[in-house]
């Protein structure tokens, strides 16, 4: 976890205003009680705790957030917003910040997490339902893991076992209303 605090000479409120206006999340209601972070199961892997993410928005420290692993590692388990006395929707804030990065504000600090989400959505766009086999193939190729023999072997063995146990589908299901789903993608995804 990052412990050094930034030196702030003047607080720029424009980022806070932008976030609150666009996301409708009342980030400025935070009084830093840290209940969110005490209950968060993911803090062991995060570079900033959830209360810091909220604080950084209030202080206008946009770059730190754009570069953070935390926004990608949040698992949306909703423990934080459930316990927040001010009902600040932190998972929604994490999504909003991920959106900032994925639409061009920077590079995802957890590249593979973002890649997985993209490959997942590609699969939904192609068939209307996610096809796990195709999703895994796309992810392995684009993450470069297709050329790591150990990863390939691990996944092949898992896939084989799943297949033997009837837990692997070999072909995608294409829904009839696929064109409607694809229109949703055109409208709401980049």
């Amino acid at each position, binding site marked *: 976890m990052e412990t050094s605090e930034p030196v702030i000479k003047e607080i720029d409120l424009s980022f806070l205003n932008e976030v609150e206006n666009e996301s409708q999340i009342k980030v400025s209601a935070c009084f830093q009680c840290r209940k969110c972070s005490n209950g968060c*199961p*993911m803090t*062991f*892997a995060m570079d900033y705790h959830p209360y810091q993410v909220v604080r950084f928005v209030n202080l206008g420290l946009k770059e730190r957030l754009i570069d953070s692993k935390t926004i990608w*590692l949040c*698992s*949306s*388990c*909703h*423990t934080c*917003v*459930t316990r927040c006395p001010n*009902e600040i*929707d932190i998972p*929604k804030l994490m*999504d*909003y910040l*991920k*959106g900032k990065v*994925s639409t061009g504000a920077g590079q995802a600090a*957890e590249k*593979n*997490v*973002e*890649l*997985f*989400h*993209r490959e*997942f*959505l590609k699969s*939904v766009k192609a068939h*209307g*339902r*996610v*096809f*796990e086999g195709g999703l*895994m193939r796309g*992810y392995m190729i684009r*993450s470069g893991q297709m050329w790591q023999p150990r990863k390939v072997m691990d996944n092949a063995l*898992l896939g084989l*076992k*799943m297949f033997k*146990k*009837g*837990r*692997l*589908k070999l072909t995608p*299901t294409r*829904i*009839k*209303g696929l064109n*409607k*789903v694809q229109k*949703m*993608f055109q*409208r*709401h*995804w*980049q």
Partner: protein
Amino acid sequence: MKVSYYPGCSLESTASDYNASIQALTGMLGIELSEVEDWNCCGSTSAHSLSPELSLVLSARNVVRAEAAGRDLIVPCSLCFNRLKTAEKALRQGTVSEYNFSGSIQVRDILEFFSSSEVLDRFVDMINKPLRGLKALCYYGCQGNRPPQIIGRTDCENPMDMDRLVEACGATAVDWPFKTDCCGASHAVARQDVVYELVGRLFDRAVAQGADCFVVSCQMCQANLDMYQEKISQARGQKYQIPVFYFTELMGLALGHPDVSKWLSRHFVDPSPLLNQLELL
């Protein structure tokens, strides 16, 4: 009793055993499931992570189709349930401009449905093989309970639906503090190390509580706890051997359904030694 059913993508593949047990159980209980016609993926974590708007319309299409069929919508996957419930709320508030929704049906979590008195009373009357001696940890995970603003539950810090069901089956529901902790489902591919840590904590606690098995209602939890158990054992230098049942499988077992062994054969951690030892198979 007739309800609409949204299986979700993984019940067609990795969780086909869950689907089979749900179909069998509802058949025995006289509940007619009718699958939402031509349903689409809810977009899962990936859609709301990259485009909350996309997540909402993908889910809303399913809710609106269920309303056209005129019955409450039962959802087994906790993640799908969470997304569809979020869409239901947005539709009620009129914030999804693409769709009209009159609000005549509700999206319901399958666990809540099965533990409601309308279903539970029928089930209890039909039990012919109580699961005596089985000590089970009910693991609810996150998405079926939280956030209360969407799901509308007041017991989200300590849900008891599954505990009641398991006790109704004749088993013992072991109390434990991690019942609504997260298994890290959405990171199972990209950050396996994170999932191993989260699930490893659950295993350690299960061992400390002296439980025989986990019971779950979410197939993402089942996959993380069951499929990766051997790997997590290796990574943590422990030898975990804890079967992970769907609650519907335990209900099927208590009713003496003939296909139970078939469902259980799809698990990675074989539950039959435990069940044989307790003379429950």
